Structure formats: structure tokens, C-alpha cells
């Protein structure tokens, strides 16, 4: 069982959360000519690193806020969590 520290609610079990994927993916800017390659990069391409991974989680059975979690993908250790709009280190 993962225990995730929600910045709004405190430490909760993973059962309360839904995963939201890589948090470093950036949507191309609006109102701008966007190439197929840029869309491809945003929609489909993922680094999926072994080690530290910044990812989105949704506290869906709690405060329903999206949060960012920095977690190790090989040990599952959670280093730090952030509010969705908080700047990460």
C-alpha cells in the first residue's frame, strides 16, 4: 500500500487516489500554429524514467483536488508532494 501525503488533507492510503500520469508533459500553447510533431510529443511521447518521476494524482475519494507527487518508479518511495499549481523543485 502506498501512503500519499495530500497537501490539503494529510497522509492517506493509495485507495483514495486515482493516478493521472506524467506531470511534466506540457500542452502546446493555445492560439498558435502547432505542428503534428508537437502534438505527437504532447499526446503520445513519454520519458517514463526509472527513478524519480513527477506525476499527477487525483484525490478522488478525498478532497477531489489534483496533486503532484514525486515518486521513485523502482522503489515506490515518495519524496515530496505538491499542490497542482505549486512550482516543483
Amino acid at each position, binding site marked *: 500500500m502506498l501512503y500519499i501525503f495530500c497537501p490539503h488533507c494529510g497522509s492517506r492510503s493509495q485507495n483514495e487516489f486515482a493516478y493521472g500520469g506524467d506531470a511534466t508533459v506540457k500542452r502546446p500553447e493555445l492560439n498558435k500554429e502547432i505542428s*503534428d510533431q508537437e502534438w*505527437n510529443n504532447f*499526446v*503520445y*511521447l*513519454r520519458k*517514463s524514467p*526509472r527513478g524519480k518521476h513527477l506525476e499527477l494524482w487525483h484525490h478522488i475519494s478525498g478532497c477531489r483536488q489534483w496533486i503532484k507527487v514525486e515518486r521513485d*518508479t523502482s522503489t*515506490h518511495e515518495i519524496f515530496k508532494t505538491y499542490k497542482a499549481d505549486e512550482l516543483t523543485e
Partner: protein
Amino acid sequence: MQKYSVFSLIKNAFSDHQNWEVAWKDPTPKKEYDVIIIGGGGHGLATAYYLAKEHNITNVAIIEKGWIGGGNVGRNTTIIRSNYMHDDNALFSEFGMDLWRKMSQDLNYNVMFSPRGIINLAHSDAQMNAYSRRGNSMRLNGIDAVLLNREEVQKRIPMADFSDNVRFPIFGGLMQPSAGTARHDAVAWGYARQADSMGVDIIQNCEVTGFDVTNGKIVGVRTSRGDIKAKKVGLCVAGSTNILAEMLNMTLPIETHLLQACVSEPVKPLLDHVVTFGAGHFYCSQSDKGEMVMGGDLDGYNSYSQRGNLPTLQHVLTEGIAMFPFLSKLKMLRTWGGIMDMSMDGSPIIDKTHIDGLYLNCGWCYGGFKATPASGWTFAHTIAQDRVHKLNAGYSLNRFNTGDLIDEKGLGTKTWIS
């Protein structure tokens, strides 16, 4: 190579089975190969075998960081099927079914292929309609499919929950009678033994640490056992694809996720088919040893850990008990995990890359085992001829850019919920 037969068995019985030849050698890497296959799993071993057998390329090395067959080919639930709707998947898998049927004879190794049939259960009228559509598509592609009603399902799997008071009553199911299971370790060992006998070097405990690329062309790989030159390199590393891609400065439409499987204690034969639950994600078959072999959802977040987490296992088995209530009385014997190369449309990639001489075989999600022979066959063709075969033409890396996705399940890019 010593042929396995009843006569060799009897002959070796006289010397207490002490004089069997080793099934494959343990060579030290040469300085140079025509082709290096990275990854000594089912797909890598099959690729090397078909390179030697179909294309007469025998100066080949398989480089494996652990031991052959220690990854997903030894961790899957051994299901073999071709019940796909989309042409690319259906024709590719059905080609593979043919190779499965001939495999034991072809490899002179009993892979215990057991075409016991797979039943996908339906729990609503809408699902019956969807299955009838899929079944019709399969039949158009020459694959056997039978739509079963509730009574026909009950005749085949009477131990499923057919009582009145269930949340997901069984309306019927789609059956592919020619689908089945095989002994997964034997597949790896059979391919390894034959590849080795044709001159392929199987190099275990050898981890790739980098690549040598000059002027956009691959010239070799760097490994924990020294640098090895190669004219062509093929990647068959499933869940480790992203790690190697990073060394090549490539970003792929792949995420690595964790999938668990488990077996119960062995019981007497009671389940004749592979059965999948239609209202969730759970599948089950009975092994020859009598264990119920079960699996279901991914753990649900990027992971390279090869070991599972309890909440997902609990969730999957809850679905299992909803389908087969008797499972609640069985003890769990083993659980384990493997790491899956989840592609963004749920279909694999077998293609050339932008680097000359570098070939990619990945994105099998959790359907890699059944694809072993077809994947090896088409990947060998792609490497040997430096062009894709029509069977894997749809599995291009560029399809994400052009929009020609093969989204069998239509789930989109959230790989962790598929």
C-alpha cells in the same frame, strides 16, 4: 544437437540421465556480430531463431542482463489467442496461431500447447452486441469465433456464478475455440536451444550500458562485458525499452507499468477453458499442475519494480470471486509481478528507427506472450531485409504521428487504466 525423442530418453535412462547435452552454451562475447538482439526473453530468442532459420543469418548474439526467460516470458499467464477485431492485430495474431500449432514439432521441444479455447464473458445486451461484432470481424479474417448464449456458457463453465442474485449476471460470451495456453518456460528454452544449435550466441548476465552510433548508423553496443560491434541491433526488452531509449536520446510512445499475476494452490481439474470476466478485468485458467492461474489490472502507476502491491491484487481477486465464487475457498500459492511496455494505443511497435541498423520491438502491453512466435518471425524479417513485412506494417512507430492508431480497445493514452 541431440534430438529429443522417446529413443534418446530411453538411451539416456541407461546412464541415469547424466549424459544429456547442455541445451545451450554459455559463450563469451565475440568482438563483432552481424546482428545483436538485446533482450533474451521470448521475443528476442524467437527473433534470433527465425533470423537463423528463415534468413540464414547465424552470426547473431542475444544479450541478456539477467538470465534467459527470467522476465515476462516466465511471468505471464500463458494465454494464447487471436480474438482481435482490427485487421492488423487479427492477421498478425492468427499468423502466430499457426506457428504455435507447429511449435513443438518445429523446435523439437514440447511447449505443451493446449488449444482449450478462451471464453470472454458478456454481462449485458450491449456487450453481447459488441462481442457479436468482434466475432464477425474475426471470422472475416479466418479466425474461429463462436457466440455463446447463457445456457451454452453454463454448460462449459458450470462453476461460474449463475445464481439470480448477482451484480453482473452472465448473458453469454464470445469463444475462440482454437485459443489456449502453452508452457511459457518451454517456449523460451525451446527457442534458445534451437537458436544456439544454429550458431547464435546466448550471452547472459550481460547488461547494455550504451550504444555506439556514428553518422546516424549503429556500429555497436557497450555492455558490462565489454564493447561489441554489430552491423544491426534489435531491441526486444519489453518493460526496459524506455531505459534503452534514453541512452539513444529517443522518446517513445511507451510507459512502463507493473502487472501482477498469481496462482492458487493446485486442485483437481475443473476449468477446461481460459475465461475472462467481462464486467472488469480478470482472467483465469487452470494449469496442468491444477493451479488456478489468474491475472487482471495493472497496478496503475509507472513502475519498474517487478513486484506488486496489495490493493490491486485484492481488487482483481474480488472480481475473480464475483465470477467464480469457489475461488474464495482456495489458498493463494504465489503472486508475482512483471513490467509491461504499455504503448499509447495498446498495440505493439515492430519497426525500423531513425538510426540506420537499429530496430525496435516493443509496446506489447500485457499481450506479449501469445505474440512470441509472430513477433520473432516478423522482427527477424524486418532486421534481415531492412524493411517491414506486411504483417507488421501496421505496427509502425510513426503511426502516432500520422494518426493511424490501432486502438483495439479505444482507451486512449491513459495506459495505466487499460
